Structure formats: structure tokens, C-alpha cells
């Protein structure tokens, strides 16, 4: 497991914030775990989704740091499926994501970064 230097974010946390910012830019103010995992997969250009434990543990940490907030989805909108925990970037989280993006080296491929995922299920 990557070790944290004081005042810094782990790579998985930066990746989550960047994916959350990408979703926010597509007018999605909130996102849920699986939707976020999909966006992260898209941005990485990977075939696999982030492990359950890794994802939700990191989401919990970011919430504790005040970079994300979360609430349960309203019951009437769940359409017969399990209700989702909906996350949103805080102002501080959005700023951290912007800083992480600015610090990232320019992508080598022609495609612009971040790539945006299709709207999650």
C-alpha cells in the first residue's frame, strides 16, 4: 500500500477526485460508487474496475478529509433497485482536484484529459 506524506493525497484519492471533477463538469453534481468506478476505469484506459474495498475505503477517507460529502439517495427515486450512497465534491475537494489536474504532466496521447465517461447506470 502506498504511504502518505503529510498533507498529500494518495494516488487513488487523487484519481477519485479527478473522476469526480470530470463528472461534475458533465453537470452531474452527485455520483455513486459504481458510476465513479466506471469513470475512473475510463480515465485510466483500463479494463478492470477498482476493487470494492479499495474504492469505498478511499471514499470514506476523502469524506473524513472534508473533500467529499455523501447522503443516501431518496427512497422514491430508487426504482426497485437498492438505494445508492450519493457523493458530491465539496469546494475544498474541487480545488484539490483542480490542483491535482494542474500538477499532472501533459498526456502523451492526442486525446484530451480527462476523458469523460458515459453517464453511469
Amino acid at each position: 500500500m502506498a504511504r502518505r506524506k503529510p498533507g498529500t493525497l494518495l494516488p487513488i484519492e487523487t484519481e477519485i477526485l479527478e473522476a469526480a471533477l470530470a463528472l461534475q463538469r458533465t453537470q452531474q453534481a452527485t455520483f455513486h460508487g459504481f458510476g465513479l468506478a466506471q469513470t475512473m476505469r475510463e480515465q485510466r484506459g483500463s479494463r478492470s474496475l477498482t476493487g470494492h474495498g479499495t474504492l469505498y475505503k478511499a471514499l470514506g477517507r476523502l469524506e473524513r478529509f472534508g473533500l467529499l460529502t455523501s447522503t443516501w439517495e431518496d427512497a422514491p427515486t430508487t426504482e426497485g433497485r437498492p438505494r445508492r450512497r450519493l457523493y458530491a465534491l465539496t469546494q475544498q475537494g474541487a480545488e484539490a482536484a483542480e490542483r491535482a489536474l494542474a500538477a499532472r504532466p501533459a498526456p502523451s496521447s492526442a486525446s484530451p484529459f480527462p476523458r469523460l465517461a458515459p453517464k453511469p447506470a
Partner: protein
Amino acid sequence: MSPERIATLVARWARLYTRRLPASIAERRIEELGADVHDHIAHERGHGVGDRRIALGLLSRLVRGLPADVSWRGRHSPVARSVVRVALVTAAILLVPLVAMQLSGGVAWSPADFAVAAVLIGGTGLLQQLAARRAGDLAYRAAAGVALAAAFLLAWTTLAVGVVGEPDDPLNALYAGVLAVGAVGALLARGRPRGMARALLATALAQALAAAVALVVSLAGTPADRLGSVADVIGVNGLFVLLFAGSAWLFARAAATGRGRAPFPAPRRSGHRDR
């Protein structure tokens, strides 16, 4: 292998690693994972992905997340954290004689010595963590600290050098009795401050009685049979009497203020049934 079977496996694993955590934390994780797995299956099926591939994807996410699940559990479980902390401190302390044995021929610990020391240090540490976590009163925590330190010192001294005479002197068995009085008293009191005060007072009296027996036996024998000077026997035993009595006084103070909470659950009343 169907996605639903792997979903059941994910749910079972989540229930297992959230067992005995606060309900709000456990329910949130289980429910959130349930929604994630449901969304995962629905999304992949909606995109024409075969069931076998979906199941493998779910299994892969489960397996890759296992270390994080275990570490997350440790963070939310005070007991697991305490056990890890005590184990690390015990290992660090035992490294000292281990390293000393490599550097000097004067230190020679057998595997049994290490095992006894690990049990003594680890056991004392775990009891200290229990008292420190559950008790809300400074007097209670101080009382528990003094009692544990005294019990640890008494056990260590008895095993290593003997409180009276040599370590193999039969009279040293008296001090196992002193420790037994304290342990049984603490169990009967279930950590409640008033009961603990009585238990530690009984331990102090048992220590004084052991000292008296040791003195009488020693003085009745020939000078060669004596177990050290009278001053030594009184001094060493007196120190332990003071420590146990001091702990009893601190427990009594905690009982008087009423803030010290029992670290063990109260016994059930007969006739009461849990629902």
C-alpha cells in the same frame, strides 16, 4: 459461475468483515456494496456482456479489495487496533533481549522465557487497553494502571529472581496466590470500581500475609536457611502492599465520583431474557 452467486459471496464477505462494528457503519458499507454490485451487473448486462465475464469482473473487484477491507475493519474496530498496538509494543520489548543475546553471552533467554515474557507483557498491555478505553474517570484509569503495574512487577520478580530467597524457593508460590486473589476479585467485581477497590484491598492483605508467612518461616530456620534480611523481605513486600493498597484507594475514589464505568458488561439478572 453466475453474477448473482458472486454477488451473494460479496454480501457474505461484507457481513463477515463488518461483524460487531457499530450498526450504522456496518449497514452503510453493506448497503453501499449491495447497490454497487447491483449497478455493476445491470450495467454490464445492459451492454451485452456475458454472465461469466460479469461474474469474473465482480470476483476480481472483491479479491483486489480484500486487503483494504481488512485494513478498514481494523480502523473501525477499537479492539483490533488495541490488539495490534499491544502486539507491536510486546514484540519491540522482546527485541531487546533478543538483540542482547546476539551481542553478549551474559544474556541467555530460552524460548520458554520469551513465551512467558510475551504472555506477561501482552496480557498486561491488553488489560491496560481495556481499562483505558472503557473507563471515563482519571482515578479509575490510574487505579487500573497501578494495579496492573504492581501485578506485572510481582509476577516478573517471582519468576525471574524470587521475591524471597531463590526463584525456586517453594515460598515464592505464595505470590502466585496473591496474584490469584487479585485476578479472582477483579473477575467477581467485573471491573466495577467499588468491587475493584475491595479486590485490590484483598490483594494487598494477601501480600502482607505472604510476607508474614515468609518472615516466620525464615526466622524459624537456621541463619543459613534465611530468605534474606528481615528488612529486605519487609521492604520488597511492603512496596507491593503499598501499590495494591494505593490502587484500592484510587478505585474507591473512582467509585465515590461515580464516573468510572465498568469495562466489562454487567452480569445478566436471572429471569431476564434477551429478545
